[in-house]
Structures are given as structure tokens and as C-alpha cells.
């Protein structure tokens, strides 16, 4: 598993403790929604980076008022065809104005990177031998977009009418 972020491979600095009983005192961690709801106070007092993992049945409205506390929001795809997180991503970006790292985790297929990027994900946990190349292929596969979304690609309708 590699972490692909903004088109490059990075070391994942976060430890996923979302299913751990006890939270570590130090180090960057990813917590679950329940942990955040139960231990939010303690978590905000920690000095290290904090991220949250939302399962596919946990809507981002639960954390809409807490976004400033998170350096990473990871959205889980339990299977590639559970598409709820595509909407969650857009809501986080467009409605709640979340600016930080938005990470796709779980059953993330290379072929989905393009759509995921369009709805606002900028990092991905993927299985790949050559993630950078895979990313380049996925990003360049299609160069025409009909819809406005959370990325800054220009939809066709603007190309047609803005000149």
C-alpha cells in the first residue's frame, strides 16, 4: 500500500488508531468518528497532527463544525462500488469549505482516481507498483469534463461559451 498525494508518493506519517482501544500520547494519528465524539477534548489538546476516518455510513455533517481540528480527513470505500464518499467529498469541499488533505482509503481502484480527484480527493491509499505512473495515466485518460465539480478543471460549457 502506498500513499499517493498530489501526484507524488509520500510516506504516510499517520498511524491509523481508529480501531485501537487506547490513543497514543504522541505522533500523528487517524481516529474514528466515535473516538472524536467521545474524546474530542483530549484529542484537541495533543500537539501532533490529527486526522479522522469516516466510514461510508458516516456523513460529514457530523464533523462540519470541527473541520479546523483536522489535518486529514480520510473517507473509507468499503467496496469500490459504494459511492457515497464521492458525495461526502464534494460536500466537504464545496459546502463546508474544507481545505486540508482529503484522503481516499479502502477499496480504491486505479481507474477511480480520476473521478475521486474530480470530487476533491487529493490523496489516495492505493495498491500499486508504480503509483506515480498510474496516477499520470489516470489523470490524463480523459481531458473533457461536462460537469462543474470540486476540482478546478474547466467544464465544457464554459469552454464553449466564454470566448
Amino acid at each position, binding site marked *: 500500500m502506498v500513499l499517493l498525494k498530489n501526484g507524488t508518493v509520500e510516506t504516510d506519517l499517520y498511524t491509523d488508531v481508529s480501531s485501537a482501544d487506547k490513543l497514543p500520547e504522541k505522533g500523528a494519528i487517524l481516529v474514528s468518528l466515535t473516538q472524536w465524539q467521545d474524546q474530542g477534548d483530549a484529542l484537541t489538546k495533543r500537539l501532533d497532527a490529527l486526522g479522522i476516518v469516516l466510514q461510508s455510513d458516516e*456523513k460529514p455533517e457530523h464533523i462540519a463544525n470541527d473541520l479546523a481540528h483536522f489535518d486529514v480527513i480520510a473517507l473509507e470505500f468499503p467496496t*469500490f*462500488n*459504494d*459511492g*457515497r464518499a*464521492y*458525495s461526502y467529498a*464534494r460536500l466537504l469541499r464545496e*459546502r463546508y469549505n474544507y481545505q486540508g488533505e482529503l484522503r481516499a482509503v479502502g477499496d480504491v*481502484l486505479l*481507474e477511480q482516481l*480520476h*473521478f*475521486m480527484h*474530480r*470530487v476533491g480527493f487529493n490523496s489516495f491509499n492505493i495498491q500499486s507498483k508504480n503509483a506515480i505512473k498510474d496516477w499520470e*495515466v489516470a489523470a490524463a*485518460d*480523459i*481531458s*473533457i*469534463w*461536462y*460537469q*462543474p*465539480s470540486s476540482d478546478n478543471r474547466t*467544464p*465544457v*460549457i464554459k*469552454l*464553449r*461559451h466564454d470566448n
Partner: protein
Amino acid sequence: MYRYDEFDARLVTERVEQFRRQAQRRLSGELTEDQFKPLRLMNGLYLQLHAYMMRINIPYGALSSKQMRQLAHIARTYDKGYGHFTTRQNIQYNWIQLKNVPDALADLAAVEMHGIQSSGNCIRNTTSDQYAGVARDELEDPRVYCEIIRQWSTLHPEFSFLPRKFKIAVTGSPNDRAAVKLHDIGLRMHQNEQGKTGFEVIVGGGQGRTPFVGKTIRDWLAPEHLLSYLEAILRVYNLDGRRDNKYKARIKILVHQIGTDEFRRLVDTEWQQIKDGALNLPQSEIDRINAYFTPPAYAQIDDETESLNEQRTQNPAFDAWVQANLAEHKVSGYSIVNISLKSPKLPPGDVTAVQMDALADLADEYSFSELRVNHRQNLVLADVPQKDLLSLWTKLIELDLATPNIGLISDIIACPGLDYCALANARSIPLAQEIHQRFQDIDKVHDIGELTINISGCMNACGHHHVGHIGILGVDKRGKEFYQFTLGGSSDQNASLGDRTGKGFPADEAVNAVEKILNTYIMVRNDGERFLETYRRVGMKPFKEALYGSA
């Protein structure tokens, strides 16, 4: 007809190349069938019992003669010489080999066609009225908005992994020929009190195991808000639609479970947030698309009533065809010609490559080089000058494409059934053919008049049996094929689901049952009353008695 501009063309070409790489990875073994499945489904490729099936979109049913020739070419080059038109205004090829699919898709891209989103849990081909643009009762051309929806929904990044497939239909006429009340979203164009045309928005219609007639969630929606409103509906569905059970995942179940009012509230709340944003449809774009649908250069001619009548009197077979297969055109001197794909010789919807080529020629000669496909698996030549009807008919006869049965008893929708489909309980096509055989007498057929018989081989209802005036459903009873009947279904503006008559009939009694139902109708009908009207007036009782005896 809409023509691709540079952007549309580039997208489809890029998509073909993308799929070529993916297919290559599958053929080399780099991808397993499991990993390949979502990729091929997104391009309309199913794996069936013996081969791949490729489904190609015919956007809102419109085909140019050039496209039809290419469909013939695909049938001949990559398949067994024929194709199958579906109830969704698509065409399917049943015997395609994976190694040939990228080339077939490239050939299709060359004529502005593709299979993107013709399968999978995404927004499918938007369907419409086969008489769009030429119908006398039409308010505005629905194809303009179908095309707008086609573009918006193509490779939509948020809605490509919905709980289940999603189908949208649009009608621009009060007489609904697009079955909009039986779609996930149905849009009916009409005028508000200020005389401005907009959409009634209907959601949650559908057939399958749990059929529903759609519910209206908005009486009138201004065209500039069409896409933001659709996006709001789709987002609510993507977030809240059930994903735990494939048979409960369509939007109709969500609407049913939370109720129409609550669903409307959710959509409106979402819509308020995105309305007047980037999805607002500028008039310039509506106008741009509208320009593609300007009517062809009609000649200034009068209706040919007299000479046509003379030809009809001289030729009873021609007369029967004119009576059954023609519809009124909005321009004088022209007729809409329906071409029946329900000849007794071929399964409903099947067309050979030879017929496709010939149809393309006929479209060039008689109908401004365009054809349409309708949701009853028939074809349409929309703009035929009345003076040419006789010569067109003569040529259709030679092609076995002049069956005079549109809207009549043998114009049957039948799903593939046990002959082709692994899920089937019973055969559909042979039963359709048997009914066709039984009711050959043209006078009797016309006496029975307007009637739809729809046959599904199992409860998945691909043959739309719930909305047939007479619906027939294949069931399995201890390993034997049985058929259950429903009466009174309809998919038009007064859509309704049929009522069960009672217990089913074994295969060898099914056609007799149809005959009993129709004899009853003839006995109890009022003058000029159609089957459906009679059923709605008298109810089930007399039919039940005829079928099962009085208890």
C-alpha cells in the same frame, strides 16, 4: 439531430483508447475478470453465458442513416449479422469477442456513438418520445433537454457508483409516449400559469420486482434550474439510497420508505444550497443545443388525402398498414411511419445487418436521413412525404418490415426469456410468436384494436408486464413453466400497474387465456371503447369469470 462538437468527439475517442488499454490488460492476464468487471460494465460490456454482450446507446432514440449503416457494419464484422433493439432505445450485440470490442467501439466513435454508462449503477441513456419534434400534440422538443442531460450525466464523477442503475425520461407532449411515470426520474414539459415552459418532476417510478408509478415532487421547474435540481435528487439518492440489498436499492424504494413529502423536503433542502450556482443552464447553451434540432427543410405540400385514399381502396394490405403504422405529422403532407420489428419470423426487436443497411437507404430516400428507435422495440421514419408512402411500403414489404401491427395485439414487448436469459422462469419469445399466430385475422385484430401485451420471463420485469394492458409473467411451478396474467396496466400519462387475475396457466393454456380475456372484452365493451377503458370501467370480475369459471 445533435452533432458532436470537438469536445464531445474528443471525450468519446479518449474513452475508447482508455478501454483499449484496459481490455489489453485483461487479455494479457494483468487484470482478473473480477477487476475487469467494473471497467467493462462502465462501457456497456456484459459477460453472458457464452459470450460478451455489448450494449450501445442510441441517445433518446435518434439515429442517422450513417449511424445505422455503422450498426450494420458492427453486426456483420464483429457479431453474427444482427443486432437487437431494446426497450431502452439501445442496441445490443450478443456475440461479440473481447478482443474485437475496442475496434468496434472505435468504429462507433467515428459516427458519434458509444456504450458509456449503458450498464452499471450510474445514470443510463436518457430516453424520450419517438415522435419528438414531429408530433402534433408536442409543446416543446424534449430532445434538447435529453441532450443537455446526456452531457451532464456523462462521466459524472459523483454519480458513477450509485446504489443502483438510474434512468431518466423526458416527454414534451401531454400524451406520454416515453413512459415518464415509470422511470427513476420522469420529466414532463408543460406550461405554467405565465405561459412559460418547464418541467413537472416525477420520481420513483419503476418496474422490476416492486413496481411503482412515480410521484410528482415538483409541479413546475424552470429549465435554467434543470441540472441543479437533478443534481440535488441524485445527491440525496446517492447518500440515502439503500445499499444493503440490490432489490431494494432503486430510488423508488427510498421514496416509498421515507415518503414523497420527506423525499421532496430533502431534495429541496439540498437544492437551495446549489441552486443558482455553476450548474445554472445559460440560455446560450439551451439555444446552442436547440439549433441542432431545427426542423428539416419540409416541402410546402398539402395532405394527400385523396390520392392516398385511392391507393388504400385499391390495396387492402397497404390500407391495413396505413391504418396501423402511421401517426399524424405536425406538418401537412407528411406522415410519421412506424416500422414494426414484430414480424412473426424474428424475435421482437431483432434486425439483421441487411435490414439495417436497407433501412438506412430508406431513411436517405424518404425521411431526411434519420431514424428513431422507440421503447416498444420498433423503429420510426419520422418525416415521410405522403406521396411516397406507397413506394416506401412496397420496399418495406420486401424487407419483411411492413408488419401492420403497431399498437395492436401482436405488437408485443417480450424480454429474451428462457431462450437467452439465465434468470428466466419461462420462455417469452415463443409465447409472443404463438399469440401472433393465433391472432392473424386482420379484421379481428383491428376489431380488438389498441392493445399492448407485455411478457416478462421472470419477476425482474424486463418485458414490462406490469404496464401491459395485458401483462404476462413467467413463473416456475415445480419445474414447469407457468404464466400469470395482469390486466389494466399502462405506461402513458395515466400510468397504472396491472392487477393479477388469479392463479397462473401452464404454457399450453396461455394463449387460450389471452383469447378468453379478449372475447370477454368484445362481449362487454361499449361502442368504440378500447380494452384498457373497458377494463377500467368494468373491473376484474367478468374477466375472472371467463378465465376461472364463476365460483
